[in-house]
């Protein structure tokens, strides 16, 4: 069995994100494996550990994305492919086309990816790849059971759980809760340094850069003002609240 995992290196949204000149400032930002992709990597390694599988990572991004790939290799993936681009496009259709070409060559039985990436958050690329390759797909998977060619996935349907049965080859996108990703051990990290990592350029994949969308600007959400606590008896507070809603917020 061959499993391909799509992995993106993103900035850490848990750390401070600085926007400068309409762009997220990379200098000083912490970069991590997109957390949803980390669930995908973990799931792939678990499938490998419970049977026999090769786990191949594919990433599109700048050279620094190697760190994220090495980390996933240290977790237990076998090899990695980096489609290198120092100014990566955010156009999902183009990115999907690139990745689809690379995935196609690997012809995986299972394609795993994150539900969405925490930076752009569109959640389109993986699905578009599956679409281009004519693969079945199940999104936002919370639990996965494999039985030969048969796939049973429990997916997050906006709070409910939907059970989907399908067959290989399939794309599954990982939702938080699918598993608890391991962290790389020191021996794992040492081994990962020697695992194969191939670099490709978009040109080598025969895909011309064609963008139908462009990111014009990025900005932080407006700062939340400190809340106001209204004191007094219930009646006084209600009166004051109505007054504020009418006179200050002008919403009633």
């Amino acid at each position, binding site marked *: 069995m061959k499993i391909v995992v799509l992995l993106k290196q993103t900035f850490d949204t848990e750390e401070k994100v600085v926007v400068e000149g309409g762009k997220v400032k990379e200098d000083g930002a912490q970069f991590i494996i997109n957390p949803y992709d980390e669930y995908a990597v973990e799931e792939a390694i678990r499938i490998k550990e419970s049977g026999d599988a090769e786990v191949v990572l594919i990433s599109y991004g700048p050279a620094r994305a190697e760190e994220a790939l090495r*980390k996933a290799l240290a977790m237990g993936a076998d090899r990695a492919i980096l489609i290198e681009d120092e100014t990566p496009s955010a156009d999902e259709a183009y990115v999907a086309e690139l990745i689809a070409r690379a995935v196609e060559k690997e012809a995986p039985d299972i394609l795993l990816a994150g539900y969405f990436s925490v930076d752009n958050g569109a959640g389109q690329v993986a699905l578009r790849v599956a679409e281009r390759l004519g693969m079945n797909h199940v999104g936002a998977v919370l639990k996965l059971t494999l039985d030969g060619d048969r796939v049973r996935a429990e997916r997050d349907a906006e709070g409910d759980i939907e059970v989907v049965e399908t067959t290989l080859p399939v794309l599954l996108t990982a939702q938080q809760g699918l598993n608890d990703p391991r962290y790389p*051990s*020191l*021996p*794992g990290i*040492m081994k990962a340094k020697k695992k194969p990592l191939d670099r490709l350029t978009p040109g080598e994949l025969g895909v011309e850069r064609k963008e139908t969308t462009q990111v014009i600007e990025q900005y932080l959400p407006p700062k939340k003002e400190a809340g106001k606590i209204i004191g007094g008896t219930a009646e006084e507070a209600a009166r004051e609240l109505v007054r504020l809603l009418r006179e200050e917020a002008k919403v009633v």
Partner: protein
Amino acid sequence: MLAIGFMLTDEQRTVIDAVEELLRKLKPRQEAYFKSIYDDQHYPDELWEHMSALGLFGALVPEAYGGSGLGLLAMTLAMERFAAHGLGNVLAVLTTMDAMAILRGGTEAQKRRFLPAIAEGKLRMAFAITEPDAGTNSFRMRTLARKDGSVYRLSGRKAWITGADRADYVLVVARTIPYEEVIAQGLRERYGMGLFLVDTKAEGLSMQAMETVGIEGFRQFFLYLDDVEVPEDHRIGDEHDGAEVMFDALNPERILFAAKGVGMTEYALARAAEYAKARRVFGDTPIAAYQGVQHPLARLKVLQEAARMLTYQAAEAFDRGRARSEVGLFANMAKYLASETAFEAIDRAIQTHGGNGFSKEYHLIRMMAPARLMKTAPINNEMVLNYIAERALGLPRSY
């Protein structure tokens, strides 16, 4: 920002990154860990498991015995990072020193028996040398190991033994020849001492908790040894020359304590800087803008970096198998500077926090004791300076 010097090797950086990655993942649990360590005097087992899974104990053990052979420096870096997050682990320090005793002084059979389990993090070990009446001058210890056929029988009393309740084994230092006899025969006072790996469940061994403030979740114990039988193959090193092996273990202990001091200093300075930037006392100026607040912190930062370099150098010297005296000199200098700096840093961080420095919520006041401890144990800083004066400056021994 992690200021960790630029002369680290790739491998060392990897260790730091791996530990930081782990600690980042554990961050949501930090308050729970602090509660367990400082309120319940119980270092979380979970953290030990994580250290094992990461392969930190394996790093101490050569590949031939199931480890990765990265060496003491890996544990040194890890200990610093754990302490930098307020999670210094003294039992890991003690286990490391015992592991080093086995590695440097054990027989092939002992290595094959104990090292793989240590590498997996399955063995926790304490160290017992101090007695109520023999601390700094441990040569005068009274605990006696009597040879009895193929076993030894240990009798005596140890004090201040950290983590004895959490350990599988205690490496006990005992006299194989009483002190007076050694002196009467004109032998060196370090002669006639042996190292014994004593199972904490052995018959005749009992322990009683001491009323101390503990060290980061580990308590101290009196150990009572009443004719405790120890198999001969649990003696590490020569029967009468255990001190040889012991010195190989005491250096790593000092190095790891130094690393803990460097980490604690980082914790204290980071908290102080963070607080000072947010706290406004006069007008709209944060207290961080006052040089009276800045300079003491900046000075400690300098001392911390110096301590860090000494510490790494000592660990590196140990890993490269440099002469024990050379390792010892750096280990002692590192321990001295790191312990003095850590204590001052916690003190300064408390000062920076004003009244909040004394609030449990900010943890600093509770780190005061473990920071202060390092000036006294594993060895007091007067003895450290004695050593440096004698070895580095050739000054006469004063005691």
